[in-house]
C-alpha cells in the first residue's frame, strides 16, 4: 500500500456522524434513508458502518456478501449501483461468516476502527455518513480520534420519543459538547403509529420527547419520522424505501430532514 500519507478522506467534503445514546432507535435505518434521500438529491454519498457487533447497513441496502478489494490507497468501498453514487464499507464485509458474533474487547475494536476510518479509499464524496453503535465507548472514541485530522461537520442524534431513550440521548449530547462535535440536530424516530385500518394515531413510544430534548439542550429539531411498517419491511428486504413510497408521510419527513441537513452543511 502506498505509504506516502495519501489522505483517503481528502476528497470527502462532509462527514456526518449518526449517533444515539440509546440502542434500537433506528440509527442504521435513519442513516440508510438519509443516504438514499441525499442520493436522490443528486449527491455522492458514502456510508461507513462501524457498528462492529451489529452491522445492519449491508442488509438494508441489499448488498449481500460482496468481496472487498484493496487498491493502492486501501480498501475499495462497495458500491450499491453502477453509477457509484452510494458507497458502503461495513465490518460485515470483512467477516468470513457475516452472521458470526464479533465478541471483541475494546482495544481490538479500536484498532479495527482506526483502519476502517483511514484506510477506505472513498474517492470523491459529497457526504460520508458514519453509522455508530449505541453508547459512548471505544468505537466512538476511536472514530473521533481517527477523524480528528479530517473535519467532522457534526452529528445527527436519533431518539425515540420515550423517556428512557431521551435520557440516554441526553448523555450523548453532553458527549458531543465535550468532544467538540457540532450537533446538527435531533431526529425523533418511531414518532406515532397510524393504524392502517382506521387511521387512528397511537403514540406507542410516546410523543414529543425528541422535540423537548432539542429545546432542553438548545439543539435543532430536525423532524419526526413515524413508525411505518412499510419502512421496516423495506429495510428488512433491502429495498429503496425512498424510491418505492414517495407518497408516504414517512417519505416527506425524511426528505424534509435531508433538506435541513443539507442547509446546515451548506451544500
Amino acid at each position, binding site marked *: 500500500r502506498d505509504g506516502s500519507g495519501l489522505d483517503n478522506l481528502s476528497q470527502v467534503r462532509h462527514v456526518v456522524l449518526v449517533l444515539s445514546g440509546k440502542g434500537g432507535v433506528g440509527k442504521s435505518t435513519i442513516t440508510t434513508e438519509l443516504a438514499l434521500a441525499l442520493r436522490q438529491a443528486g449527491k455522492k454519498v458514502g456510508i461507513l458502518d462501524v457498528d462492529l457487533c451489529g452491522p445492519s447497513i449491508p442488509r438494508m441496502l441489499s448488498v449481500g456478501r460482496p468481496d472487498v478489494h484493496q487498491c493502492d490507497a486501501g480498501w475499495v468501498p462497495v458500491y450499491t449501483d453502477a453509477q457509484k453514487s452510494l458507497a458502503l464499507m461495513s465490518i460485515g464485509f470483512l467477516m468470513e461468516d457475516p452472521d458470526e458474533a464479533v465478541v471483541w474487547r475494546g482495544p481490538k475494536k479500536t484498532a479495527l476502527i482506526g483502519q476502517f476510518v483511514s484506510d477506505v479509499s472513498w474517492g470523491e464524496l459529497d457526504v460520508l455518513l458514519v453509522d455508530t453503535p*449505541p453508547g459512548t*465507548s471505544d468505537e466512538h*472514541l476511536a472514530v473521533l480520534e481517527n477523524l480528528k485530522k479530517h473535519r467532522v461537520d457534526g452529528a445527527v442524534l436519533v431518539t425515540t420519543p420515550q*423517556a428512557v431513550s431521551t435520557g440516554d440521548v*441526553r448523555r450523548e449530547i453532553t*458527549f458531543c459538547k465535550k468532544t467538540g462535535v457540532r450537533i446538527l440536530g435531533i431526529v425523533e424516530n418511531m414518532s406515532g403509529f397510524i393504524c392502517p385500518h382506521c387511521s387512528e394515531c397511537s403514540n406507542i413510544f410516546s410523543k414529543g420527547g425528541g422535540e423537548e430534548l432539542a429545546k432542553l439542550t438548545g439543539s435543532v429539531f430536525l423532524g419526526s419520522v413515524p413508525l411505518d411498517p412499510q419502512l421496516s*419491511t423495506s429495510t428488512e428486504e433491502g429495498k429503496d424505501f425512498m424510491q418505492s413510497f414517495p407518497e408516504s408521510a414517512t417519505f416527506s419527513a425524511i426528505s424534509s430532514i435531508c433538506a435541513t441537513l443539507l442547509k446546515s452543511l451548506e451544500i
Partner: protein
Amino acid sequence: MPCPSLFLTHLVVLFCVLKHSVDSKSLQERQRQQMARGLPKQKPITGVKQIIVVASGKGGVGKSTTAVNLALGLSANDPSKSVGLLDADVYGPSIPKLMNLKGSPDLTDNNLMIPLMNYGILCMSMGFLVDDAAPIVWRGLMVMSAIEKLLRQVDWGELDFLVVDMPPGTGDVQLSISQNVPVAGAVIVSTPQDIALLDARRGAEMFNKVHVPVIGLVQNMSVFQCPNCLHQTHIFGSDGAKNLALSMGVHFLGDVPLHLSIRETSDSGKPVVVSAPDSAEVWAHLRPLGRQLPCPPPDDTGRAGVSRP
C-alpha cells in the same frame, strides 16, 4: 574424514532442530497454561444463588423492560424469594427510570454499596452513580473495572435470583460478566424483525462461546393492537423469533405484545407487573417463569424453587 567444523555445524543444526521440536510442544503447553492463568477465574457472588442475564445483541428490543418485569414477576410468583436487579448497561442505564429510583447508594461499614430498593427488588445501576446528563465515555478496560465493582462491591445480602440487564452488543461487558461470575442462564430478547434476529443469533452464539446456557428467546413487540378499532398490525414482522428459536434449538419463551400500557408504565417508573398485575401483558412476561428458568436448590423443607403461575 569430514571436516570437523562442518561435522560440528551439522551436529549443532541437528541439535537445534531436535530441541526446537521438543521445545515447541512444551512451549505450546506452557503457552496454554499461561493463557489459562491470564483468564479471570469465575467466582460466585457471595449470597447470590442464581444469576440470570437478560441480553439480546440488538439495542432497543426491550431488554431492560423485560429484565425489570422478569425480576418483579419472579418476586410476585413467590414472595418468599429475594430478587435483585443489576443494570450492567454502563453507557445507557435504564433501570433507575424504569424502577423509579434515584439517588446515590450509601456505603456499609466495609465499603460495600447498599443497593436501592423499590417494589421489593434490590437494584444497582451505574445510573445511581452518575449525573443524569453525564455521558460515560469509557474505554473497555474501565468498563470492566466498573462491572466488577457493580458485581462484587454491592451489599446484595442473600439473594435467590440476581437478574442482570445487559447492554446491547457482544463485547467487553458480556465477556466480563460471563467470565467472572457463574451465570445460570441467559434469556435472549428480540423483536420479530430480521435485523434484530441476526443480532439475537449473534448474542446466543456469544453465550455458547463462553459456555453460558441459553434459557430461551422472548419475542418482544410481537404485535400491536389498535386501541381504537382493535386491528392487529405486526409492525416489526411476525414469528421471526419463534422461527429463530426453532432453528437454533433454543426454547421459545413466548410473545410479549407491543402495548401502550407497557411503555406508559415503564416511562412513569411503575412497571406493568406492579401496576396492572392482572393484565395480559403481565402473563406474557411471567410465562418464562413457568418454563425453563433455573430453580434455586431446594430449601430445607425440600420444596423446589419456582412454582408455575
